[in-house]
């Protein structure tokens, strides 16, 4: 089967983001950008499915600026076979991305789309579920284990208080949680091969998708800072303060 893996270009998780002084957003100029970490897990899972002989071809897709080609190259270096860039410079909300991906799914016909459970920039955690809805497919979100079983996929999901297992008919959507796997480091030969793998570029208009944002950002601000409190010298002092000063125990 063919597997589609959408990947997003985001501010690297090691970067401490700063809110712009004018409150219009966060500073992203001259900041290191990387593939969304959960998307790396999604790519890794697709590559493992290919190594097991379950997947035949892996297509990585990124919706974003031209520079998102770098993230596609990373996916190709990890083992994806080819890339598609849906090039758009403005804001793309999850609903718009889901519509773009639906159009790509229509062209490519994958049996499985694996996405990261959320992007670490807007923290929406929505694109996978929205794509499933638009396609009328089943969804296995927050997956910590994925196994193909005949014409279905068995997904173990991270839920509050433990794990839940669902069986989802193919074609299906899976979103990757942290514990699904540990992504590999791209090897040098694979980085070299990735250079030669094709990346096709399309525009939202080519796919007939309206990506106008539904949300307008009125302001972005820093959350209130917590002040450091006092140091206590002993456990006895701590308990005394919690009992008599903070009155929480």
């Amino acid at each position, binding site marked *: 089967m063919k597997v589609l893996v959408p990947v997003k270009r985001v501010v690297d998780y090691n970067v401490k983001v700063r809110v712009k002084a004018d409150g219009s957003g966060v500073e992203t100029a001259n900041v290191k950008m990387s593939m969304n970490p959960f998307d790396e897990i999604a790519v890794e899972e697709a590559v493992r499915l290919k190594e097991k002989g379950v997947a035949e071809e892996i297509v990585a897709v990124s919706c974003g600026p031209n520079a998102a080609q770098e993230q596609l190259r990373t996916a190709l270096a990890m083992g994806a076979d080819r890339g598609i860039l849906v090039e758009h410079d403005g804001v793309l909300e999850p609903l718009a991305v889901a519509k773009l991906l639906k159009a790509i799914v229509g062209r490519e016909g994958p049996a499985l789309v694996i996405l990261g459970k959320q992007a670490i920039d807007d923290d929406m955690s929505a694109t996978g579920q929205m794509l499933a809805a638009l396609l009328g497919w089943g969804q296995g979100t927050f997956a910590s284990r994925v196994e193909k079983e005949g014409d279905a996929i068995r997904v173990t999901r991270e839920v509050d208080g433990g794990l839940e297992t669902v069986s989802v008919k193919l074609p299906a959507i899976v979103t990757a949680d942290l514990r699904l796997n540990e992504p590999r*480091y791209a*090897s*040098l*030969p694979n*980085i*070299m091969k*990735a250079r030669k793998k094709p990346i096709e570029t399309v525009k939202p208009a080519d796919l007939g998708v309206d990506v106008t944002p539904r949300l307008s950002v009125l302001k972005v601000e820093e959350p209130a800072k917590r002040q450091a409190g006092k140091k206590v010298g002993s456990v006895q002092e701590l308990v005394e303060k919690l009992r008599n000063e903070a009155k929480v125990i």
Partner: protein
Amino acid sequence: MKGDNVVDFALTPQHEALQEAIGRICADFGDEYWLMRDRQGGFPTELHQALAKGGWLGVCMPEDVGGAGLGITEAALMMQTIAQSGAGMSGASAIHMNIFGLQPVVVFGTEEQKQRMLPPLIEGRERACFAVTEPNTGLDTTQLKTRAERRGDRYVVHGQKVWISTAQVAEKMLLLARTTPAEQARKRTEGLSLFYTNFDRSRIEVREIEKMGRKAVDSNQVFIDGLEIPVEDRIGEEGQGFRYILHGMNPERILIAAEAVGLGHLAVSRAAAYAKERVVFGRPIGQNQAIQHPLAECWMELEAARLMTMNAAWRYDSGLECGAQANAAKYLAAEAGFKACQQAVMTHGGFGYAKEYHVERYLRESMIPRIAPISPQLILSFVAERVLGLPKSY
């Protein structure tokens, strides 16, 4: 963009991908790992194997033997990244030799030799040491004394080598030895032959040299007594070994320069981080110009050295003459690296002298690129003679 845009200092996306990937591998080997290696010694096998697994040892080997076919530019970026990750020279030296040292085999070896010798090195199954320097000749390489005598289909070798890194662990050796006595050779540069052969410990004695730093990567005296080398392990023509070995000299200078830049930047970034956090007299010490300015100066000198290094690498990869640039890069980078490490120790004050703050280790290691593979004085002499056209002084 104005003009013809022929000069481009930006890293390509591929270079960035390379740095990123190497950086991730190195991130698994933290400060504690290198501190322990420095205390206890022991080859950093784990890093060597992790890099081999990712195909990195073949960065500038040809593709038909399993390499990536990239240039010295990429190898230099890689070595800088390794050193700068915190691994310093302990990490860099562990693989330094393996990624470029076999260029003579790549260029002058037969197809059979390449297929036999290079893949095991790239895959990390074998490690090579580089046996050229001798105790009584120093940098006067043409005067090597180690003898390899032809007897039928083999050579028998007797002699000594010194400062042979990784000889404790290497499975293979690239050996330069005399096959024609110096007085019978037609030219000063002839009469030496190059071999790549098994490190046969039954005929080779290895004595480790206790040294100032980089305990993880051993340096040794090597005594060769009756080592037999089959003729098929000789690289290229008999008597031409010196010419072959010269091929690797400029790349080696470029790589060691990149390593020195990496080490220096590592030291500066540690010092800057410390200066930001360390509060004395009610303010971070980094607020004082006496702390900031020397670090800023170190950064500038390191960047200038880096640009010279990349210039030399680019010239080498473009097939241009690069001797002056490679030597200049090694000189500038080594001095800038040393100064940066020294400044990092001073910035830390007393803590800089404590091992657990790591910078004293960098300072000890920073002597390596200053001294090896060639002294700063010989580089100055080389530039004076070859670039400025001044009379030879030695």
